[in-house]
């Protein structure tokens, strides 16, 4: 089992000092996915006040670090290509903390780049994988269908109308944040309740507006030691707690369609950081679908199983509210190139370094960042504290 005492001893030993997106996000047909990695990497290093030559640890998902390092022209001394879906980049933050705390590297660079929208990078399928044998032949392919089947099971157990209302509320309040973020895909587009309910079906019970965007985008994060973070250019954010894991790959193997692995990673990361649910000023929860947010709130322990809809009704998640959630506009309304996890970390770091402009929270000392990847398969939770 993970050794919580050892983990507590490395809490705060690494700090985020740079975050950035690629120059453009949304529709970027004139850039390759690997170019988006590179662009974001340089932007994040600039935010950190460092150069590519300072990087000695490289982390990425969807690609091998071999390709990214070669493209950037660097020789990392620590490499990690952990790819467990969109949560991978949140998990990389944990791995960077561990690598830095144990001395494997001093400046960790996490990169992401995908052209989901411009479609030059079709998802590879492994024909020998169980998924290709047992699910794909039935047209059970990709996230919307799998997550929709999980949501339908939730509705069966906890009620269809209150679940629908909660899903609509998540979509609407997330859009309000996007309307404050000029980089958001839907910055200029408001959403009404009618828009939500009238949007076309993708995979029932999911409307179009239950589903994340499909965009082109890149992002990167720079993490370094406590010592080296002290004189960083734009301030730093402390990595206080982190946990990761997964319990299935195919949706048909998920132990309980209403409980993802956040039931473990949430409490474990909080234990490592020594914080509790009421301490947070911001929650950045990977919103691949409205349903993902609903059960993530439950899974992390903000409320009991099945109480997600009541919890959402009792809070204001949008601007000016008492439970700020996905302040960048989320995967639902800001950007989602395929594996969105890195953007949850980017936004949390921006809120804590007062870089969030019109959507800046008055107080943001502690944030919970949570990625869900694959088919509700993997989760990574990271707790960040303002320095």
């Amino acid at each position, binding site marked *: 089992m993970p050794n919580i005492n050892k983990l507590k001893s490395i809490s705060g030993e690494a700090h985020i000092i740079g975050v950035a997106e690629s120059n453009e996000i949304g529709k970027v047909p004139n850039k390759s996915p690997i170019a988006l990695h590179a662009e974001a990497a340089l932007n994040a290093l600039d935010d950190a006040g460092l150069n590519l030559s300072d990087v000695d640890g490289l982390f990425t998902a969807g690609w091998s670090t071999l390709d990214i390092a070669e493209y950037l022209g660097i020789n990392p001394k620590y490499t990690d290509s952990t790819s467990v879906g969109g949560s991978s980049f949140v998990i990389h933050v944990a791995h960077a903390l561990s690598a830095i705390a144990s001395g494997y590297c001093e400046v960790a660079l996490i990169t992401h780049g995908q052209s989901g929208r411009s479609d030059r990078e079709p998802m590879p399928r492994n024909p*020998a994988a*169980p998924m290709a044998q*047992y699910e794909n*032949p039935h047209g059970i392919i990709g996230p*919307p*269908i799998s997550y929709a*089947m999980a949501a339908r099971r939730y509705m069966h157990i906890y009620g269809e109308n209150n679940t629908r209302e909660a899903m609509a509320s998540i979509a609407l309040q997330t859009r309000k944040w996007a309307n404050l973020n000029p980089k958001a895909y839907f910055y200029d587009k408001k959403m009404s309740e009618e828009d939500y309910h009238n949007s076309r079906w*993708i995979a*029932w019970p999911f409307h179009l507006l239950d589903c994340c965007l499909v965009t082109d985008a890149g992002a990167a994060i720079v993490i370094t030691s406590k010592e080296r973070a002290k004189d960083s250019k734009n301030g730093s954010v402390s990595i206080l707690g982190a946990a990761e894991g997964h319990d299935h790959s195919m949706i048909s193997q998920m132990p309980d369609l209403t409980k993802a692995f956040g039931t473990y990673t949430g409490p474990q990361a909080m234990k490592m950081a020594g914080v509790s649910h009421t301490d947070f000023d911001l929650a950045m929860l990977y919103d691949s679908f409205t349903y993902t947010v609903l059960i993530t709130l439950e899974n992390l322990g903000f409320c009991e199983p099945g109480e997600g809809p009541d919890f959402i009704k009792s809070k204001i998640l949008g601007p000016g509210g008492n439970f700020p959630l996905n302040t960048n506009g989320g995967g639902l309304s800001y950007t989602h190139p395929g594996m969105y996890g890195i953007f949850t970390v980017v936004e949390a770091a921006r809120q804590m370094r007062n870089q969030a402009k019109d959507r800046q929270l008055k107080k943001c000392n502690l944030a919970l960042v949570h990625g869900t990847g694959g088919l509700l398969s993997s989760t990574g939770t990271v707790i960040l504290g303002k320095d």
Partner: protein
Amino acid sequence: MIQPIAQPESDFYWENLKKEKIFIQRSKNTKKFQFFPREISIHNPNEKLEWVEVSGEAELYTFSIVYVAPHKNFIDHVPYITALVKLKEGVIIPTNIINVEPKPENLVIGMKLSPVFVHKNNQPTLLKFQPKK
């Protein structure tokens, strides 16, 4: 459609579907079933596995109705019903519900289902389900 490519540990499963027989793996001592076919028991890696023929009687565990094809090979099939069904023996199988209009009101979680063997010339037989008559 996308055709499954059988692997050594699943040849027996696919060959029997062709004969309209459903075989599921069971751990020899604990008598616990598992789906999908594997080389090892997920209930106890020290136990041997045996193949057991089952009736295919099942109930609907959950479903979705797919309106946007997730792959070019399914463009002509939408809307279609994807489902997870629970066999009497307790295992969950990913599949389609066929021979029913793809409308949410036609599908009740817990409804009884029976197996349908869908043969395509020279391709593996797929196990689908329909509402029990």
